[in-house]
């Protein structure tokens, strides 16, 4: 027993040093994706196999004059290399492209950024070419230029400039990757966004669960809560200024709104009953939550500014969760009123409730795609798998095939689904992303175990 206790203390001591190392995590090498068999494409899947072979060369961003910058110990020249590395990792990790990063490419002279040496790059076999520059002005502000060229056509496809504070240099790289991704895929961008999730440490029977946030690629990781009270199921507000989440602060499960600017928090609603499963409306004006009264759980909504909650479901049993359609007029949620967990849709005022999932097994944690065309959910039939269906309940399609995958959350562009995976026996959890074909699955780097990911929108 003493040994177990020591092991427990050791485990509990682990997160701090790990967290310290997490300031700029190296992007993970592409995972050998053990993809499930292809379940067939639908019209909403835009992944063309042709794109998968598209080579993109991303040499280091040039700098006119190598100047010191707080963004990099090596000055703006080293920062130019780091920016190209971040872009390379972004584009590699979504399975559409074959990017080649700066470590394998010759440097670009500053004057060549707007006028590439096309024959030389064609000779290397590049199809797409990224050039860019980064310069620090007198005040230290970073000016970043990002360009995409079609080598064969000798044509410029993207030209964009941003100004960022040194601390936000990775955002410049994500913005550039977003431009390239959007131009080549025809999809909306998503790299310049953030993720809230639950960081987990410790043994299965005494797991510490803390609220944490990070960039979409795992960088700029930060723990928000200490772990003294168990935290679960966070959701970023659309403006990133707040996070709603469940906390067992003072021993009882209730929903708090955490203010990411002031680092303070408040209760969503004063109630002696347990409240959980919080969600935002797309405009950030409403918070959905579930409340158990006696043995029954129902869904409520309350103005994010506070006020009197309104009960949306009134059936005996468990009605829980909820996710708004992108236009805010409908809510998809789960209910066991039919005898087992199934997915239902209702109008935003609670009227017109109807079941939409009619396949075998149980269907849980529905999340409406930001594009409106699909609902991601957890399908439970022995194992738990991530699946999508249409808002009418048709076209069930599995995206993952593992022992326990749950709690899907959409990338801001509705093209990638993030979820968490639990290992049998150990109970260890990890964050994963999968694209809509189900073929490109990868693990998101986190300093400790992770669950309940929630993806916020693209930053302005």
């Amino acid at each position, binding site marked *: *027993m003493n040994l177990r206790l020591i092991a427990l203390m050791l485990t509990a001591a682990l997160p701090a040093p790990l967290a310290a190392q997490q300031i700029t995590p190296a992007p993970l090498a592409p995972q050998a994706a053990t993809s499930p068999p292809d379940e067939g494409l639908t019209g909403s899947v835009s992944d063309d196999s042709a794109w998968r072979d598209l080579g993109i060369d991303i040499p280091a961003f040039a700098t006119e004059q190598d100047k010191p910058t707080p963004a990099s110990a090596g000055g703006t020249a080293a920062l130019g290399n780091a920016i190209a590395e971040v872009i390379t990792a972004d584009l590699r990790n979504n399975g559409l492209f074959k990017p080649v990063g700066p470590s394998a490419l010759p440097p670009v002279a500053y004057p060549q950024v707007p006028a590439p040496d096309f024959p030389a790059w064609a000779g290397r076999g590049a199809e797409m070419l990224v050039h860019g520059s980064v310069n620090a002005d007198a005040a230290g502000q970073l000016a970043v230029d990002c360009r995409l060229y079609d080598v064969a056509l000798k044509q410029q496809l993207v030209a964009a400039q941003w100004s960022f504070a040194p601390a936000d240099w990775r955002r410049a790289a994500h913005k550039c990757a977003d431009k390239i991704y959007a131009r080549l895929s025809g999809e909306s961008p998503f790299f310049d966004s953030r993720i809230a999730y639950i960081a987990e440490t410790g*043994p*299965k*029977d*005494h*797991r510490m*669960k803390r609220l944490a946030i990070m960039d979409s690629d795992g960088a700029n990781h930060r723990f928000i809560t200490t772990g*003294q*009270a*168990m935290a*679960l*199921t966070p959701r970023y507000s659309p403006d990133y200024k707040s996070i709603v989440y*469940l906390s*067992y602060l*003072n*021993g*009882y*499960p209730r929903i708090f709104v955490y203010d990411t600017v002031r680092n303070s928090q408040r209760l969503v609603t004063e109630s002696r009953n*347990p409240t*959980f*499963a919080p969600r935002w409306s797309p405009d950030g004006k409403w918070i959905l939550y*579930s409340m*158990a009264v*006696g*043995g*029954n*759980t129902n869904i409520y909504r309350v103005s994010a500014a506070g006020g009197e909650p309104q009960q949306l479901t009134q059936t005996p049993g*468990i009605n*829980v*969760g909820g996710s708004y359609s992108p236009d805010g007029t409908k809510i998809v949620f*789960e209910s*066991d009123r039919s005898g*087992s*967990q199934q997915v239902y849709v209702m109008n935003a005022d609670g009227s017109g409730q109807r079941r939409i999932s009619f396949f075998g097994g149980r269907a*849980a*944690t529905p999340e409406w795609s930001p594009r409106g065309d699909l609902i991601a959910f*957890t399908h*439970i039939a022995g194992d*738990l798998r991530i699946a999508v269906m249409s808002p009418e309940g048709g076209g069930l399609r599995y995206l993952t095939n593992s*022992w*326990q995958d*749950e*709690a899907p959350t959409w990338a801001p562009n509705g093209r990638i689904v993030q979820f968490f995976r*639990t290992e*049998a*026996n150990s*109970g260890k959890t990890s964050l994963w992303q999968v694209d809509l074909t189900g073929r490109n699955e990868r693990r998101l780097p986190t300093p400790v175990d992770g*669950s*309940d990911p929630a993806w916020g929108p693209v930053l302005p």
Partner: protein
Amino acid sequence: MSHPIRFTALALAMALVAGCASKAPKELPPEPGPAVSTTTPQPTLQGPVPGSQADFQATMMGKDTIYFDTDKYNIDEADAAALRTQAGWLARYPAKRATVEGHADERGTRDYNLALGQRRANAAKDYLVSLGIDAARLSTISYGKERPVALGSNEEAWAKNRRAVTVTID
């Protein structure tokens, strides 16, 4: 003459009881810190303080916990027997309050399991109330699937984790 030896044996037995008690996960406070207090008072030579949580546990001999089938929350015959035993103790100590903790196994989604644990805790509470225990003495809390006692990923472990545990408040 034999007193010192008897004394040592008794102290050892007490230490063992205390040790085992603190090992049981349901005995752990919900969170480190100022959460619900379910600490065990120091046992005396006479055994657990009558009316304490330690006494409740020692008297229940496992009947402080009832078990449920997958996705179910009904009180079966074995549950009813255990709850009658609990009610007997609670009737003996009318000043004591108790919390019923509801739990689910790991094979479900997090939000739903929180609701399911609440439903199970509530079912146990309702039954205790039907046996004459004042509802004001009983509170409920759900930990969903977050606090397993059996750590395997198999039917046997899941059956042990689908439970409602009554913890008296010292």
